[in-house]
């Protein structure tokens, strides 16, 4: 550490050693201890300005600004909300569909035989030759159930 370098450091960074370049701090402090009178003259001059600079305080930001900035951030909650909307919509549609099916089933049980199935449905089911192939009236007639017939044989 030279006197010139010590002077440059204090002139640039002030009197507080914590603000001096880290890799030169120890050398500078050592030089100051060894040349106390010279160092004090330089440090005293810088200290006056440091005290001036320390007076300049900036007020902390307003809470409203903080909240405004936070509100502008794209957070996970927005995505979760969208998902929940999607699920709630699907659930709503599901409930509606279930209700419609339940209503159709109720009507099929309450209405007289054969009237609930449209003609094309009957033909379609008949050609498939399934257990659903018969009309509603078939199911209501004793001995007309395919399984019952088979068991009688």
């Amino acid at each position, binding site marked *: 550490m030279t006197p010139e370098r010590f002077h440059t450091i204090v002139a640039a960074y002030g009197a507080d050693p914590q603000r001096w370049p880290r890799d030169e701090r120890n050398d500078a402090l050592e030089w100051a201890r060894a040349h106390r009178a010279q160092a004090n003259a330089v440090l005293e001059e810088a200290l006056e*300005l440091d005290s001036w*600079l320390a007076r300049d305080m900036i007020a902390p930001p307003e809470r409203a600004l903080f909240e405004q900035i936070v509100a502008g951030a794209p957070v996970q909650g927005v995505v979760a909300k969208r998902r929940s909307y999607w699920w709630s919509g699907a659930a709503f549609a599901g409930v509606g569909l279930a209700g419609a099916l339940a209503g159709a089933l109720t009507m099929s049980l309450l209405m007289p035989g054969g009237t609930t199935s449209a003609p094309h449905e009957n033909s379609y089911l008949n050609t498939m030759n399934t257990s659903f192939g018969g009309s509603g009236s078939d199911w209501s007639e004793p001995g007309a159930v395919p399984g019952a017939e088979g068991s009688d044989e």
Partner: protein
Amino acid sequence: MQDREAGKTLSERDPDADLVARVGARDPLAVRALVASKLPRLIALATRMLGDCNEAEDVAQEAFVRIWKQAPTWRTGEAKFDTWLHRVALNLCYDRLRGRREETVDDLHAMTEPAPDPAGAPDQQLEARTRDQRVRAALAALPVRQREALVLTYYQELSNLEAAGLMGISVDALESLLARARRTLRAQLAGDATGKDSV
């Protein structure tokens, strides 16, 4: 805080890395923590660079918009987040400073002075505020590069390497700017003190 060794500073772990990663993952708590941590620094930087609280708030808000965009793809190691944020804020400040080139130093002084208190302040408060105004006015009157150097190293407490890197100059050039800034301020504030009062 000061360090002339480039390797040492850049190899240090970025203290904001984890928080930024969580912000990138849209963690609401991390968002609040990051705003609480960086907003005061951004406001302080922009207020001292621009000398205007309202403009400083605008700069801070714009800087956070950049953060929200950048966070999901932020990669540690290329630059410290805080240094990058200072670069963003400084660019925003320079955009505004360029827009007011015609303004005189007197205009800057006027902007930095807080509005008068209509109720009247006690003597001590008034005196303290007068001192603060003079320091703020003296800072505002500095050439912009000198002010930038002083604000980054003294108030934002960046290392000399970080400040020099942000300003695109060598550490020697930074120290020259700092020394000139401090000389000018000392002369101005000492002159004010003897001319106006005995503070």
